[in-house]
Structure formats: C-alpha cells, structure tokens
C-alpha cells in the first residue's frame, strides 16, 4: 500500500468518529430528561423512605420479629414498582471520601541507618528508623468536584509533628477518548511501584533502587497526560512536565519545565488466572547545584567532603509485573512477581569540597560523568486467605565515574563494590483494612557494614477505602 492509502484510512477513521459525535446533541436532550426523572425519583424516594419508617415503627410493637419479616417481604414484593434510589455507586454522599492510614514501625538495625549505600553518597538515601516510630500515617481526601473534575489530596502526618503534602491533584477525563489529565502534585507514573502509596507496598520499605535513584518515590508538581489506546490489549502512553521537585530534580523556581517524563505500559490477561503489565519510562531533568554532604573522597577526609553537581540527568527504566491466582480468585491464593530496572546517566560539572573557601584552595570544579543502575526482583505469595509471604532481592551498581583531570586525585571514581540486599517478609491481614507485618533483611548495601535488620509494621486503614491500582 502507498502512503496515500494510509492517509485515506486515517481520514476515514476520523470521519467515522465525528459521525459518532453528532449523537451528542441528542445526548443533551436526554440529559434534561434524566434530570427531570431524577427529580421525580428523589421525591418518590423520600415518600418511600417515610413509608418505610412508618412500617418500622409499627413493626417495633408486640410481634416485632414477625411483623418486621412481613414488612420486608412486602417491600420485596413491591420492588418492581419501586423507583430507583439515588446513585450509591459513588464513593460518597456529597461529602468527600476521607480515609486515614495509620501506620507505624519498629526497626532493629545494627548499623547506623544514616550511612548511605556505597557509591551512592551523592544520591538520596532515605534511611530506616530505629526503635518505635510512626511511619507513613496519611490522611487522604477525595471527591468529584463537578462532572468534569475530581480532586485528591493526601497529607502525610510527620512523626515529629506537622504535615506535608504528598499528593494534591485534580484529575479530569474531559478530553475523553481515552485521555486522562492530571495536574497538581502527584506521584509520577514511572515504573510500577512509584504510583503506589506506602500502605500498598508489599514490603516495609522501598527497593534500594527506588531509595537511591528516586528518594523512595518521585513526586512531581506539574501536569500529566495519559492516553489509553482503544485496543483489546491494555496499551497506554503518558507524558509529564513538572517543576523537578523530587530527587533527582533540584526544585527550580524558574519559568519553564524542570523535569520531563515519558512512559508507556502494556498489559493483559492470559486466561482467567494470569495477568501482567510491562512498562518503560524515560525521565530527564537538569540538576542545578545539587549539594551532597559527607561524600567519601580519596583523601579519606574525616566525615567526607561536601560536593555540588550541576548537569543533565537522564534515567531509563523497565518494569514488569505478573500475577497468578487459581481461578482468578485473589481472596484465596495468589502469586505476584515483579521486577524493575533503572539506569541513570549524569554528566556535568562537579565542584569538590564546597565547604572550603576559595582562599584556602576552595571548591575544585571539573567535569564529571557517571552511569548508575539498579534493579530488584520480588515475589509475594498469598498461601491462604489473610496470610502472605514475600522475598525480594535488590542490587545496585554505582558505576565507574569519568572524573575531570583536576579532580582525579580527590573524587572516588570507582568504588569496586556492588550493594545488594535480601529481604523476607510475612504479613497477616485480619480484614481488608488491617495488616501486620514482620520483615527480616540481610543488608549488604554498605561495604564492610553488612547488617541484619528486623522490622515490625502495622498498617490500618480507617474510613473510606479507595480502590487500589493494579
């Protein structure tokens, strides 16, 4: 076929869709009819409610049980004539859905959790907490704003007091045709785990690669647009533009775009028992004066040196998840296997030892480029209702940095060590709304400081319990 015939096919496709659009005028008429119908129904419903109350009051007489049963069967018989009640499918009745997650940990670690993974001292390294601590308690409020917009806010309750805004975004499907628009503060759509809230994690902590490369989770202030293809198989692409608030961004208060993200997902079922999703993501940001403290150097400076990096940061990632459940009944038993890989290239200028003033031989600036990567593979098995166990393997590669001549005697280019960790967990969920977890880890992420870690965790969810993502 020539390219002209493709064009023809494309035009035909567009036309067939615009014909469908002409039905929208009729839809307006229908909407008015529906509104009238709803008005009518709401009055009828109030009357039936009053009638029911009357019946109930009568029922509370002598033969309470018998007359109640009668009333119930009368109501049942009257069902065909009864008008519809107001929609109960929405998650609220005008008030926003409020959900509170109470979560806390007990951590027992041998090594100081503040020490970063070897070779990743210039990255984010959210450490664990020792002893009893209030983990990821969060308050979430969501509701439809009007027919076009839905708002979601998630506030994290900080253990030391105060709050931080984890999510605050508006979602809209106004563009229709598979488009989904989101703006405000949201978790980026990268990878598989990034969008999941802490209470939905299968382990008490994030994989090392998320901790080091994304500071656990990449949150962004910006705008996200996704498009779902009208195909039988799930195929979605998305793009984000943001301020670059979350690591590795450097939160610039400037005009324009601080970070951008592209992602694509494919997914489907295989029979009724298997399902899967795979994805790829690309992230790009410009880092400005990204400061890192206590970075080990070639002089063995006590406490390390403080460095500053400015340059480009590009990350590519692959993610996949596969789930299996006998008969597709996840209440009874299921297996979930997931893995993700990220690779980040950074190149720019590194200022070594910014703590020392120029008069005393101060910051030494030269080029710096490094490629770091990491992956994890984990599996969770629900072997009977309410009980699950899981195993995870983590690995990081700090890469070998290309350091400019002026800094070759200062900055460590090759750590010759690859951090890794093995984690096992078991959890018990007495109901859909509560979970108790034990987690053991052999953490080999810091050279010469292997650590055996024990965590106990509770996750409780109060109030409206929103649906979870896949």
């Amino acid at each position, binding site marked *: 076929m020539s390219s002209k015939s493709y064009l023809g*096919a494309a035009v035909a496709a567009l036309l067939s869709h615009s014909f469908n659009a002409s039905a929208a005028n009729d839809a307006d008429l229908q909407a008015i009819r529906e509104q009238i119908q709803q008005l009518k129904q709401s009055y009828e419903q109030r009357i039936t409610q009053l009638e029911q109350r009357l019946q109930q009051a009568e029922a509370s007489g002598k033969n309470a049980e018998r007359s109640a049963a009668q009333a119930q069967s009368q109501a049942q018989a009257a069902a065909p004539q009864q008008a519809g009640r107001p929609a109960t499918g929405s998650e609220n009745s005008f008030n926003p859905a409020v959900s509170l997650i109470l979560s806390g940990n007990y951590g027992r670690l041998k090594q100081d959790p503040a020490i970063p993974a070897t070779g990743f001292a210039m990255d984010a390294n959210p450490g664990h907490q020792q002893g009893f601590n209030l983990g990821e308690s969060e308050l979430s409020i969501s509701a439809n704003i009007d027919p076009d917009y839905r708002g979601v806010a998630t506030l994290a309750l900080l253990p030391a007091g105060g709050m931080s805004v984890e999510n605050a975004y508006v979602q809209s499907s106004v563009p229709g045709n598979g488009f989904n628009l989101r703006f405000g503060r949201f978790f980026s759509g990268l990878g598989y785990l990034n969008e999941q809230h802490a209470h939905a994690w299968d382990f008490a902590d994030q994989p090392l690669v998320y901790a080091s490369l994304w500071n656990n989770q990449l949150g962004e202030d910006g705008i996200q647009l996704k498009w779902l293809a009208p195909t039988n198989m799930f195929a979605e692409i998305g793009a984000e533009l943001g301020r670059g608030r979350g690591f590795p961004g450097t939160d610039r208060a400037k005009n324009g775009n601080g970070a951008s993200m592209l992602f694509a997902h494919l997914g489907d079922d295989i029979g009724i028992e298997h399902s899967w999703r795979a994805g790829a993501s690309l992230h790009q940001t410009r880092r400005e004066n990204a400061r890192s403290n206590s970075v080990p150097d070639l002089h063995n400076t006590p406490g390390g040196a403080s460095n500053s990096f400015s340059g480009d940061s590009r990350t590519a990632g692959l993610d996949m998840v596969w789930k299996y459940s006998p008969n597709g009944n996840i209440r009874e038993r299921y297996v979930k296997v997931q893995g993700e890989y990220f690779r980040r290239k950074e190149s720019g200028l590194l200022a070594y030892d910014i703590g020392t003033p120029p008069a005393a031989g101060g910051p030494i600036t030269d080029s710096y480029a490094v490629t770091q990567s990491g992956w994890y593979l984990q599996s969770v098995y629900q072997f009977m209702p309410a009980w699950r166990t899981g195993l995870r393997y983590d690995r990081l590669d700090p890469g070998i940095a290309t350091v400019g001549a002026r800094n070759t005697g200062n900055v460590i280019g090759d750590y010759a060590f690859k951090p890794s960790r093995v984690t096992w967990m078991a959890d018990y969920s007495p109901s859909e709304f509560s979970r108790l977890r034990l987690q053991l880890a052999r953490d080999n992420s810091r050279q010469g400081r292997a650590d055996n870690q024990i965590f106990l965790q509770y996750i409780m969810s109060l109030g409206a319990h929103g649906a979870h993502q896949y």
Partner: protein
Amino acid sequence: MNKILCILLLSLLGSNAHAALDVFACEPEWAALTQQLAGNQASIYTATGALQDPHRVEARPSLIAKARRANLVVCTGAELEAAWLPVVLRESGNRAVQPGSSGYFEAAQQVAMLEVPARLDRAEGDIHAAGNPHIQTDARNFLPIADALSKRLIQLDPANGAFYRQQLNAFNQQWRAALQKWEKQAAPLRGMPILVQHKGFPYLSNWLGLKEVAELEPKPGMEPSAAYLGTVLNGLQQHPARMVLRAAYQEARPSEWIAERAHITAVIVPYTVGGTPQAIDLFTMFDDTIQRLLAGLK
C-alpha cells in the same frame, strides 16, 4: 512501522462494525441478562468469573482496556465493586460509562435492598451502606432489573428499539413461568434452618423462606477461625440447621469442617452463571440452585 499503523487504524474502524453495543458486565449474571435482552446486538465482556470473589477483584489492565471501549457498563452496584470498579472507570478515560451517565447501569438501583445497616461501623466487618449487594440470588429481582436494563439498551441504541422490546417481552414471559415452577419446586424448603458461610444469601432466603441460623464468618469478609467455628458448632445444639450453604467461589474448608462435625450437608450453590457446570444461563442457574438445595434436604 507502516504495517503497525495500518493494523491500528483497522482495529479502530473494526471496533464499531460487528455489534451495536459494546457491553462491560461486572458479573456473569449481568452478562447473561444482557445476552437475553440484547441478543447478538451486543458484544459482551464479563469482568469477573464465577469462581472469583466479586468483592476482591483487581483493577487489572485488561479490565481498563475493555472499559475504554464499552458503551455500557452493567454492574451490581451497592459498593460490591468498590474495590476495583472506580479505578477501572477512571483510568479508562471513557466519558460515556462514568457513574451518573447513561452508559453506567447499576442493578441494585432497581430492587429493594435487604440488610441496610442501621449502624455503619467497620467493627461490623465488610458491610455495605446501601445494603447487602448479593441481589442476584432472588429470581424475582430479575424482572425489574430486566425492565430497566432493556430501557437503557433502547436509550443507547434506539435504532434497535423494537428488537429490544421484543426480547424483553419474551424474557418476561419465560421468566414468570420459570418463577412459578421454581417456587413450586422449592416449597419443601420453606422454613428450613440453614447455616451460611458468608452473609451472601439474604435474598435467596427471603425468596424461598429459608431460615438463616448463623454465619460461619465472624463478621462479613473476615475469615472464620477454628475457635469461632467451634462457637457456631455449639450454637447448633440450641438452633439446629439442616445444611450449610456457600457460593461456588468460596473456600470449602469452613463449610466442610462444620458439616462433618454437625452431621449436616454442605451445599454449594452456583451463585452466578458458571458457578457450577449445570448453571449455563440464568434459567439453569436457578434450576441448579433449587435442585442442590433439595438434594441437601435428603
């Protein structure tokens, strides 16, 4: 690349060609009812299987993709699908099937709900504010639902209005005849005391006059512990039951544990179309339910 583009365009064009309506049914019973009412005018996708717990389904990518193409979503409602459907509909980016629009149909809106909780408290377990959502176990409920669903089909596809009306009339006639037959067959079951594994049968009990003595779950949605089953077993001495009922998707162990010790029959009911090999459509689903209950009496 050109080939891929061509296939994509063809699939875009092709999607409208075969049937007038693309229907996304949350549970097999609504897929079966839509099939009865729309015949070959609808291409129907069923989101859950008969052996899946409809409370616990994941918002799988395949469901989102199917909802994206749907003209009509037919579900139970009453929060039965609260754990997955909101995400599926939101992520689908399909304006036509959002709650409140004409492409979104809730069966529970059409019937009188039972067990509407007087006290909305999670200490009561996994309860639903709108009442017990397992409405499909009372065959009488299908008449008002069919009526409303047929109206919705006509609204969405007026060109085939006459056909849908004809299908509805045929269904109503057959269903009324079947109702008489079932109620006659089930007459020996009236007043029979039963145990239920999950609070999933109030509509069935209300219809056939079964008397629920106790549930095996301590609270709806919570797994029964051995200790709790022991209490239920002791309670049977005061209020004996003839059989213990569970839906096909539910785990066998609790029912079998108690059936063995109390010397009663454990009865599996199909619960939805496909739950048992005999339940191949709505009619055979109720045929089989009643046959299995009667067999439990012996």
